[in-house]
């Protein structure tokens, strides 16, 4: 027997059997680049902080807020009811199962738009619909909802309506500042009536 033939036979067999262990199917399916570009330039992929605030206040059940910042930042401050899925963990532990549920609007939140946008692009490339980005992120949230700026007196009435809404939302999210002090801490100041007629003389 020619030794080369045996060697080549074994090599070919090993290579062929090796193809059984190639896993190409677990590569995620992607949408076409043209489609992604179409979606990226749509302004409707953004929601404003006001819309988010309104939905939270109304208890909109179709809203799912996903905070994509690292867990440490999430622990420091986060919107009430938001879910923390850091961008790095997006594809881990079945996290993708939260997205693409019919009728659920997923809103990505980060400090600004950037991380949220990155997350949005990732989910879009995977062909998941119903994901949005909170425009301006938590920075914008702070500026508009937590510390809304009062419009000028001559500003259009819509601005004043918006300000009124934001002011209300501010109270909702920060808690109203107590107008009356707590009962426990009230110091009762007893004002004694001055004695005016002590030794003032006879009748």
């Amino acid at each position: 027997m020619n030794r080369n033939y045996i060697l080549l036979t074994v090599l070919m067999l090993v290579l062929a059997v090796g193809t059984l262990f190639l896993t190409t199917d677990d590569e995620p399916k992607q949408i076409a680049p043209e489609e992604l570009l179409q979606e990226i330039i749509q302004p409707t992929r953004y929601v404003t902080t006001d819309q988010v605030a309104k939905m939270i206040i109304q208890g909109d059940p179709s809203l799912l807020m996903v905070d994509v910042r690292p867990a440490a930042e999430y622990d420091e401050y986060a919107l009430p009811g938001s879910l923390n899925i850091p961008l790095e963990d997006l594809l881990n532990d079945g996290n993708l199962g939260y997205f693409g549920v019919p009728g659920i609007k997923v809103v990505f939140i980060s400090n600004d738009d950037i991380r949220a946008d990155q997350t949005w692009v990732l989910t879009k490339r995977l062909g998941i619909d119903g994901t949005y980005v909170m425009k301006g992120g938590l920075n914008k949230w702070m500026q508009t909802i937590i510390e809304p700026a009062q419009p000028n007196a001559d500003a259009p009435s819509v601005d004043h309506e918006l300000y009124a809404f934001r002011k209300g939302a501010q109270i909702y999210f920060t808690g109203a500042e107590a107008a009356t002090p707590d009962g426990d801490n009230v110091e009762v100041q007893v004002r004694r009536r001055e004695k005016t007629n002590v030794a003032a003389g006879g009748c």
Partner: protein
Amino acid sequence: MGPLIPNGVIGGGWDFVIAILLGVAFGFILEASGFSSSRNLAGVFYGYNFVVLRVFFTALIVAMVGLLYFDYVGWISLSQIFILPTFLGPMIVGGVIMGVGFVLGGFCPGTSFTGIAIGKLDAVFFAIGLYVGIFGFSLAFPLFENFFTSGNLGNVTLTDLTGIPAPVFAVIFTVVALAAFWGTMFIEKRVRKNMKQYKF
């Protein structure tokens, strides 16, 4: 990355250049494998020379396994390559005609030209017959046009039809091919023992 032209890695004008290079390489390999001799080619039908089977089966399993690895490392996308449509009945009939022509003439179309290249007279006659056949086929085409286009299964692969993943077929074909290589080696030895004279 690949396929190169559909993905715009190289321009579409290159396909003729690549075709010429591949043609030269193909012709060279055919000649180098001894395919320019009609005795070698016909030998597969008489059992004294299985070089045709070995060369083509080797090309087949190397290309098949190689493509799977290329796809895995991302050099070529198997989802983008052209798959020849399958016409079941016409292909079986065509295969039988091809085989009969092969054993009668001692060449297949490609090998007849390698035979011409080294000056074989029988290859010249085979090529003349080839062109006469093409001419006759073209003239008679309307007679069997319906059959020619019947049984179209589309651009299907075995994986599409059966749902069995491609690597399984690759292993099966490789095992069959390797078994055929070794099996035919013994057949050759036996048949040649009884032959008085055989010149390649």
